[in-house]
């Protein structure tokens, strides 16, 4: 086991972690409070929202596909959970989180129908699903911010602490470990990378490739929905287009973490590093009171730099 882990800890996976440490050390030269426990624990909490979503995205990208329905799966889950919890009815409040997760899983299945059965490119199909979800939510809310509030459980999951560690971070780690076990200890994990390398060969080896696609997309849907529940618990409400700022950073976190966008290569640990890097980068840029324009430019330049380093390393190895 320890050998297997050591083998997986290659440089590609470690790079985003190293870059994160550099960010913290560099930032602490200007803002000494960045090395404080309070600041770092807050970053763990904020990273968890992006992190949970990125776990699901990693699974889909390992397949060689992509899920662009993240924004409105997230938004829809937040909407459903806050609406149910906002009724005040104890039974409906208890159902808030399961209903939101079920919604995410269901959308994942719909994504998989298009991708696995109709063979529509995932980029287009999940985009269409996303715009339908947007339409449904506009129809339902009338375009206003919906009423409703988060339940106590959702608040606790998003902002609570266990032994000084944010609950959201622990939840993210639980999801990551669960999925990592699935990737490395079950056939499903092997089929996932195998399809990413060569779907035809995997099918010819007797694997029911559509079932793998269905499982992967519903996991991604569940993760996005969980992210929505956490964000709703954090903001204590759902709001229009709350998921939009999460789509691109999610993909960026996955590819910075060394997962190939073509599928087959990569893993969850790298994505965890990518999530840390992006969260801290955002945080430092906002602490420095950088304008949106410059944040956007620096963000783009750093992502390209990280990718160039990753690709150059890949060519040597």
């Amino acid at each position: 086991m320890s050998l297997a882990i050591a083998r997986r800890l290659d440089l590609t996976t470690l790079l985003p972690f190293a870059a994160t440490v550099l960010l913290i050390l560099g930032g602490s030269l200007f803002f000494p409070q960045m090395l404080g426990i309070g600041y770092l624990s807050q970053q763990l909490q904020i990273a968890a929202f992006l992190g949970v979503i990125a776990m699901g995205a990693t699974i889909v990208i390992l397949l060689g596909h992509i899920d662009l329905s993240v924004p409105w799966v997230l938004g829809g889950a937040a909407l459903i959970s806050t609406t149910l919890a906002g009724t005040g009815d104890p039974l409906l409040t208890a159902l808030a989180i399961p209903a939101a997760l079920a919604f995410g899983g269901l959308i994942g299945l719909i994504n998989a129908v298009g991708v696995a059965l109709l063979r529509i490119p995932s980029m287009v199909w999940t985009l269409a699903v996303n715009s339908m979800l947007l339409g449904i939510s506009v129809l339902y809310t009338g375009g206003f911010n919906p009423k409703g509030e988060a339940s106590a459980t959702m608040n606790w999951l998003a902002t609570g602490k266990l032994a000084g560690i944010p609950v959201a971070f622990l939840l993210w780690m639980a999801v990551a470990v669960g999925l990592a076990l699935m990737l490395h200890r079950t056939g499903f994990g092997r089929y996932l990378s195998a399809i990413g390398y060569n779907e035809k060969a995997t099918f010819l080896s007797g694997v029911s490739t559509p079932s793998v696609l269905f499982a992967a997309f519903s996991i991604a849907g569940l993760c996005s929905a969980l992210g929505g529940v956490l964000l709703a618990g954090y903001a204590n409400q759902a709001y229009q287009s709350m998921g939009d700022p999460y789509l691109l950073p999610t993909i960026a976190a996955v590819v910075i973490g060394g997962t190939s966008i073509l599928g087959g290569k990569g893993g969850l640990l790298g994505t965890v590093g990518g999530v840390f890097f992006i969260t801290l980068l955002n945080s430092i840029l906002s602490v420095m009171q950088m304008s949106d324009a410059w944040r956007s430019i620096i963000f783009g330049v750093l992502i390209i730099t990280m990718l160039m380093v990753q690709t150059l390393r890949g060519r040597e190895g």
Partner: protein
Amino acid sequence: MPEFLRANRREAIAVAVLLFLLTVYLSTHPRGMSTYVMTIWANQCLILALAAAAQFFAVIVRGIDLSVGAVMALTNTIASHVMGGEGISLLGGAALVLAAGVACGLLNGALVVFARIQPIVVTLATASIFVGLALILRPTPGGVINYDLADAMTLDVLGIPTALLITAAVIGLFWIPLRRTGLGLGLYAIGSSEQAAFQSGIQVPLVRMISFGLGGLFAGLAGLYFSFVTTTGDAGIAANFTLNSIAAVVLGGVALRGGVGSLIGAIAGAFILKTIGALMFFSGLPPLAQPFVEGLVLAAAIAIGGADVLRVRNRLEVFAR
């Protein structure tokens, strides 16, 4: 003739759907068919058509460009600074705007060809940079475009909307000649099989760079035309146009796996998408239901395109798609 139709059935279907939708639109429009109605419609369609053309040059070589909207935003904000003058300065301004578009495209191309990063990730990152630059140029919407020029580009010539004349020029004077050159063939060859193209002696890096440059040029044209229609600069237009440009090329029969489809199809797809939106505006549908119906129509159109899969005889064929 049937041979010609069979060879170009993707474009033929898209154009037929477009003509049907346009007929419905003009017959349901409260003011009926008039130059005014046609001009407004054609202007909106042409903006997206130019964006779709930009997307087409990325998709045809088996890439994707997530920065189309961002380049439009950047060129639109540049235009709002340099296109407010008179006479000859407008020509220089337009050249500057288009040069900026080409430069954006070549930057994408260089990162794909020389740094060997996947197009989808490259353009994701450069889009962030371009939007940032656009925000520096125009933190809030504003600026001015020369009204005479804007009018000339967005009204009509002898009753024919200028936008339709521009569309015809792009197809007749640019695409059809290009398709017959070695470069046009090279685009398709690389999209179908990069390795086979390389082994046939096609200069893959060069053709790819040109393809990205052309994509940037068309994104710049889209930003420029957007400036003529709105006469202001706005850095916040990116997201919408990127996603719609992808939807448009798919509706127009351009395959995302590369090597299949044509610029005519991409432009027809853009016109279809905008006509559906315009149709809904006058259809009496509750405004709140419109985004949903639009998404539904998009999904249905794409699913019909995917229905080919029901006809395959051998299950293995689906993996080659």
